[in-house]
């Protein structure tokens, strides 16, 4: 079976399960919106948001809700040991990784379609001034975060304290992605947008994505072998 076909089967299955349960989208969305609200009370004074607050809060919401989505996506595979059923299929195990990653990224993008405009409204940020560049920054940042998160979530799926270990392992490693995401978005949302700086951070995010996805593809087979 071709790699892409196998990966798509896994993604489609994950999306179908999510369509039925709506569990991950609803919980991550609720969590992300709560996050924005709480920070809005702290960082918006007399109708004015603190400088760069929108960018920082947006990426905090993405990181926190993303961790929730990652944990839940693999918890589903653990509950009925369906992950073992997938591992027995005659497909490259890296295709399984790509399938899970794509599903998680698509779910997070669905959540971001709500929280990005919401952050714009709450923090008076001009989200729609450079929509393509903002979308590119959010998408590449999400891929980078989910790429390493999917690997770690798969690694931890059989450990007892996986809920605690996932953020503990994930956040330090994804700090470069978060910094690049925040600085790139802040450059774009500033009173005088700095497109050159946003492009620079975007290119760094692309580099991180390539690094993290390559690392994960390289190690996933051995990580999944007990």
């Amino acid at each position, binding site marked *: *079976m071709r790699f892409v076909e196998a990966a798509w089967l896994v993604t489609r299955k994950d999306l179908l*399960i999510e369509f*039925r349960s709506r569990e991950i989208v609803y919980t991550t969305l609720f969590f992300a919106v709560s996050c924005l609200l709480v920070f809005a009370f702290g960082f918006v004074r007399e109708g004015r948001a603190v400088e760069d607050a929108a960018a920082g809060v947006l990426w905090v919401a993405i990181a926190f809700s993303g961790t929730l989505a990652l944990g839940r996506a693999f918890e589903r595979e653990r509950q009925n*040991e*369906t992950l*073992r*059923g997938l591992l027995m299929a005659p*497909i490259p195990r890296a295709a399984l990784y790509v399938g899970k990653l794509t599903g998680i990224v698509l779910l997070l993008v669905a959540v971001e379609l709500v929280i990005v405009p919401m952050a714009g409204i709450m923090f008076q940020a001009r989200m729609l001034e450079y929509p393509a560049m903002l979308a590119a920054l959010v998408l590449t940042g999400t891929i980078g975060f989910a790429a390493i998160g999917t690997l770690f979530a798969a690694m931890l799926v059989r450990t007892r304290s996986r809920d605690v270990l996932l953020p503990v392992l994930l956040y330090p490693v994804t700090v470069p992605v978060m910094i690049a995401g925040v600085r790139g978005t802040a450059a774009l949302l500033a009173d005088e947008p700095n497109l050159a700086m946003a492009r620079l951070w975007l290119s760094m995010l692309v580099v991180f994505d390539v690094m993290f996805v390559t690392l994960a593809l390289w190690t996933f087979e051995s990580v999944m072998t007990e």
Partner: protein
Amino acid sequence: MDFTSVSFTDVSRNFGRRRALNRVSLRCDAGEIVALLGPNGAGKSTLLSIAATLLEPSSGTIRYGDQDLDRELRSRIGLLAHDLYLYPELTAAENLRFFAQINGLADAGARVDRALAGARLSDRRDDPVGGFSRGMRQRLALERALLHDPRLVLLDEPFTGLDDASSVALVDRLRGLRSHGAIVLLATHDLEVIEGLIDRAVMLFNGRLIPIDDGPGPLRDRFRRAGR
């Protein structure tokens, strides 16, 4: 890419400091049903997981015919484990179709229909598996494991949750698999049900393999003698 035997040679498996399997050697051939008996925690599921390529042995080798493990070999192995590998949110047909497709089966639709009929679940094909009883899920999981006509069939407590009629149907199914040249390795505690079905039995006790004699008398008596 096929094989007509599976051989374990001095297979050991440790989990931390606990030794689950201790130098197990066993050969099973095509057209043979081998029962794997033993008390809880004896290492039966570990041995099946190793045969299914889900666990690596700590030492020793396992060979499929004259081949070592290869990704393509997985398409010739079917496992019904204690956990049923079914998605509760998906319907019976969706579960089977997904596993048919991921196994690269070209005629997935026809196989799914046949499997649903085999599980006597054709009328529940569009119901989510989460609403099924344990017995129904067990029947469906068995069909999932056999969907791709595996050469090596690994069954861990396959009679769990099955009513009398389903148990009889499963025994008939296993006879059919044997006549078609499958290698069936079956871990169970239901000795009366498999009496007359199996070709031979072996016992695992504290990770060690003990043969059970083929002599006369009920299997349970021979099993108890072997365990002394």
